[in-house]
């Protein structure tokens, strides 16, 4: 059975700075892994390389067994991997529904013209991440940061991925909102979705993951069960900065 995601010896250098220093790991189908580490450790950079926003300096990225390094970001999304962004980037002049609409669109001009939007599905997605009926026709400038993160989530789900990379999807959310998103993630886990989740909120993260990987200075410093990783000495010092 081919693994959904395999990273082998990934290296990313920006001039003199090594942001990703020989990282290897993989994800099994339906597995949910937490990616933790202090700010600047290189977590988001890994996401960017998986999605094709940065080209890695060296190393392999495989999706379901195929090397994807030559593929464009939209092509990789069509293969089933999708991510949220730490800084939400919604379409500023579209409503919540229209934002989701873009994510739902097939990458075929003919289909875009001949088939209309699936408004029911748009509403379904928007409600599932916690929007209320009133919010559906709001535009991003009227939304709170928490709402914008929910929108990111909905848009990512709209692309119908089988692997989801979540980047700080809980930041700025109220306890109730975190709860709703957490329930959503659990539901998707039960439907065999593969997750790689970055979060500073370790309490919220714990129930959502099978295991964890800790990163610092672009290197993996601990890997294993969530409990063992967060009690690891090197991990604790990386957060406290000694």
């Amino acid at each position, binding site marked *: 059975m081919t693994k959904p995601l395999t990273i082998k010896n990934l290296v990313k250098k920006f001039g003199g700075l090594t942001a990703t220093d020989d990282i290897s790991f993989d994800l099994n189908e339906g597995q949910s892994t937490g990616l933790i580490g202090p700010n600047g450790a290189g977590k988001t950079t890994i996401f960017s390389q998986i*999605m094709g926003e940065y080209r890695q300096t060296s190393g392999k990225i495989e999706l379901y067994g195929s090397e994807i390094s030559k593929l*464009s*970001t*939209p*092509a990789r*999304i*069509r293969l089933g991997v*999708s*991510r949220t*962004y730490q800084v939400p*980037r*919604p*379409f*500023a*002049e*579209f409503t919540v529904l*229209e934002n989701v*609409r*873009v*994510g739902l*669109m097939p*990458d075929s*001009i003919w289909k*875009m*013209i*001949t*088939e*209309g*939007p699936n408004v029911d599905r748009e509403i379904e997605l928007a409600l599932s991440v916690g929007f209320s009926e009133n919010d559906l026709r709001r535009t991003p400038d009227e939304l709170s940061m928490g709402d914008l993160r929910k929108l990111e989530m909905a*848009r990512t789900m*709209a*692309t119908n991925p089988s692997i989801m990379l979540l980047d700080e999807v809980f930041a700025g959310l109220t306890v109730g909102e975190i709860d709703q998103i957490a329930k959503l993630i659990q539901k998707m886990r039960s439907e065999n979705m593969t997750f790689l989740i970055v979060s500073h909120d370790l309490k919220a993260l714990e129930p959502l993951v099978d295991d964890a990987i800790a990163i610092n200075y672009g290197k993996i410093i601990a890997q294993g069960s969530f409990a063992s990783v967060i009690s690891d000495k090197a991990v604790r010092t990386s957060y406290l900065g000694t």
Partner: protein
Amino acid sequence: MGLGLRWYHFVLWAGFIAIMALMPEFVSKGTLRTIIFANFLAIFAISWDVLSGRTGYISFGHPFLIGIGAYTTAILTKRFDVPVEYAIPTAVIMTMVGGTIMFLPALRIKGSYFALVSLAFMELIYQLVQVIRPDLTGGTRGMSGLVTLTRGAVNGYYLSVTLMIIVALCMWLLMRTRLGTALSAIGMNEESVKGSGLSPTKLKLFAFMTSAFVAGLGGAFYVHYLGSIAPRALFDINFVFTIIVATLIGGASTIVGPMFGAFFLTFLLEYLRPYLPGAERYLIYGVIALLLYMYQPKGLYHIVMTQLDRFKKRADDD
């Protein structure tokens, strides 16, 4: 197709078509000629809007496309005696080739750089047309005595109005599909479009080709209305300016906006003509355009729509 058409869309379009059809009954020949220019300007503005208004790839060299359509049909009909019914489609195809050429820089550069390059394209064709094979192109002075498709103001009017309405209706419907949504999304955040699994390259190419199609069509028919072609007037920054301002005043990325912007502008210029005969008119309407644009970049369409929304909200509250 999910066009979301409502009864009032049908009513408004039907009403508009009816008014335009009956126009010759109400107005003088002189006004008809003015409306003809407005019709063609509307076509050019719609063409610009489909590309620049939606995707945000602002083109300052749209006459490059219009010119290809115009010159192709002019050269074919005058120098090679090709019948108009073949020359015009050929002109449109050539313009679409030109649109593809213009699209190539848009693959690798964005925003401001693209705007500059489009200006360079227009300058390039302006110089080429005067220098390469002036025996074909008519050089600096252009060509005259071209085949005209209609005789008289009324027939010219009907041809231009039919063309304009067909173009407007088709583009309006096309932009109401999800394609329109995707193109607008590019204008808002191209990276996010990629992040939604859509390939901006395909979409941009389509936008360029559609814009070129309309520009070529408009350019070809315009040349056969005027019966002449003059590079100095065609490849002029004032012409670029007129098209852009018409679109912006009306309201970019709405198709209907550019239409009304074109009419507004043409009549404003005509109204000013007795007071300011020369290029000074551009001064007044440039100032008006600048103030209006800085006050509300989304144009009159947006202003009208916001008022209507307010009206609806008040009606709902009652």
